């Protein structure tokens, strides 16, 4: 009975993975398809990758996205890390936690049009800077959540020791706290970068005509004529984001918590 049930669960898991990965595998395979058709295999080809390199609009969009994601990552990582320490140590309140987390829960279109109305009211010109502002709003919350999981392993007695040895709070933070939580901070930064570079809805509403980001470009390509170049773009994006997230995941898992635990006595 139990064995039959576990066999059923195993089969279900297998089907679920097939469902999750089939679309990704198909897109990557099609990106090497010489025929360019989703229906017929015309042999292996790198032609769509070559076309991609020659697509100036796409390269411009990628450049814009990298600029946005760079600024967003820098600002969101600093704000998110400070927020994480503040929430962990000064004000322990579940209400504050969930209220601050609202931008990550609210459907993105609401945040998108809210910011658009706000920028419009203040006569802000839309551009890359407005996308940066918008992305930081939800990105810093993800950074804060990730850094907090790392802070939970941190032994505060190390900080007290530093203070006893005459370090001021800023020195203690820079030389003791930050190195200990650094893997969490880097993981947060990687997640912030990935979220920003993939983000479409908020950027779509808050970008000006000259500030087209990569997802906006991809959307236009999908919307107005499917070309095989999208498959090549898709394959590259998949591989890059999967690599980034795998790195982030390894960093958030403390190995034996060696860096943050002070051995007392034993």
């Amino acid at each position, binding site marked *: *009975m*139990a064995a039959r049930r*576990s066999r059923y*669960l*195993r089969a*279900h*898991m297998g089907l*679920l*993975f097939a469902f*999750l*990965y089939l*679309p*990704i595998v*198909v*897109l990557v395979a099609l990106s090497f398809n010489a025929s360019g058709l*989703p*229906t017929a295999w015309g042999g292996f080809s790198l032609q769509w990758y070559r076309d991609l390199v020659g697509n100036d609009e796409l390269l411009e969009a990628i450049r814009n996205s990298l600029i946005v994601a760079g600024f967003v990552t820098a600002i969101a990582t600093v*704000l*998110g890390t400070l*927020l994480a320490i*503040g*929430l962990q*140590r*000064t*004000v322990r309140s579940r209400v504050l936690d969930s209220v*601050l987390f*609202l*931008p990550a*829960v609210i*459907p993105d*279109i*609401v*945040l998108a*049009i*809210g*910011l*658009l109305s*706000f920028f419009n*009211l203040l006569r802000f010109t839309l551009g890359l800077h407005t996308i940066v*502002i918008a992305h*930081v*709003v939800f990105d810093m919350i993800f950074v804060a959540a990730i850094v907090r999981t790392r802070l939970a392993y941190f032994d505060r007695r190390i900080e007290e020791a530093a203070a006893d040895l005459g370090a001021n*709070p800023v020195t203690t933070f820079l030389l003791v706290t930050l190195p200990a939580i650094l893997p969490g901070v880097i993981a947060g930064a990687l997640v912030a970068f*990935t979220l920003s570079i*993939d983000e*479409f*809805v908020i950027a779509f509403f808050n970008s000006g005509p000259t500030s087209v980001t990569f*997802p906006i470009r*991809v*959307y236009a390509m*999908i919307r107005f004529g*499917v070309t095989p170049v*999208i*498959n090549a*773009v*898709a394959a590259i*994006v*998949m591989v890059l984001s*999967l690599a980034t997230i*795998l790195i982030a995941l390894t960093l958030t898992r403390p190995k034996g918590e060696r860096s943050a635990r002070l051995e007392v006595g034993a």
Partner: protein
Amino acid sequence: MSTATAPARRVRSRVWGPRIALLGPGTAWWLVFFLVPVGVLIAYSFFSRGPYGGVIYEPTLKNYARALDPLYVGVLWTSVRVATIATAAALLLAYPAALFIARASPRWRVPLLVLVILPFWTSFLIRTYAWIVLLNPAGLINRLLRGLGLVDESLPLLYNEFAVTLGLVYAYLPLMVLPIYASLERLGPQAAEASADLYASPAQTLRKVTIPLTLPGIVAGCIFVFVPSLGNFIVPDLLGGGRTVMVGNVIQQQFLQARDWPFGAVLAMSVIVLMFVVLVVQAQVLRRTQEVEHGRPA
């Protein structure tokens, strides 16, 4: 007196100094670029559209009255229906998977979870686009069905409500697995073992012990799927082909094409209100489960 207040003030500043330094910048950003914009949106919903698309600052309720038009109530109903079906389907797919991972040997749990969550971190647009490739009349799935002789003609899989629902399930499935897994892991195997010792069948154990005690995870997962599905406009836009119109599509259209921002704001308010209803339900379920766990009468 003054000597007594000086140290007190110093203590207070020692408490508030770090608070402001740590929480200040983030909450300031949150206030200015989240709370104020949502406030502006709420305010806009009570004004009217100007002749050239601007906003006229005269209070009115006519946008709300217009939202009661059967056309828009219908759109809202479609959104709720599609999001509900997608959530239910995701739950049916996710619960057995979470159960499998929670019962796997500890060595395998993290790799399995990572495999579930990985697709979620790749581009949302591209994952949705993949289904255009798979579902279209000449796509892989239809070719497979015809090749196996299951159907004579291609099935209309794309550009309908089925495609939209499927796209939403695919997009948010990992968000259902994670919280359910977390609550299964927190529960541990003991409860199910005790139930089996008391001669409950596996089905009874699942129905009367495991599922009720993992209800907080189930509800959290349902929220993570339902809320973003409700306001989604990419999936209905790309996979619905203009036939399955959800509230997100109308909001986008009001803001970017019709340029009736006050009416778009009203539709956004309906999404916010529905989201809060769902969050209140979650709070209720959490309280109920905690009461059960602590042995108080439910």
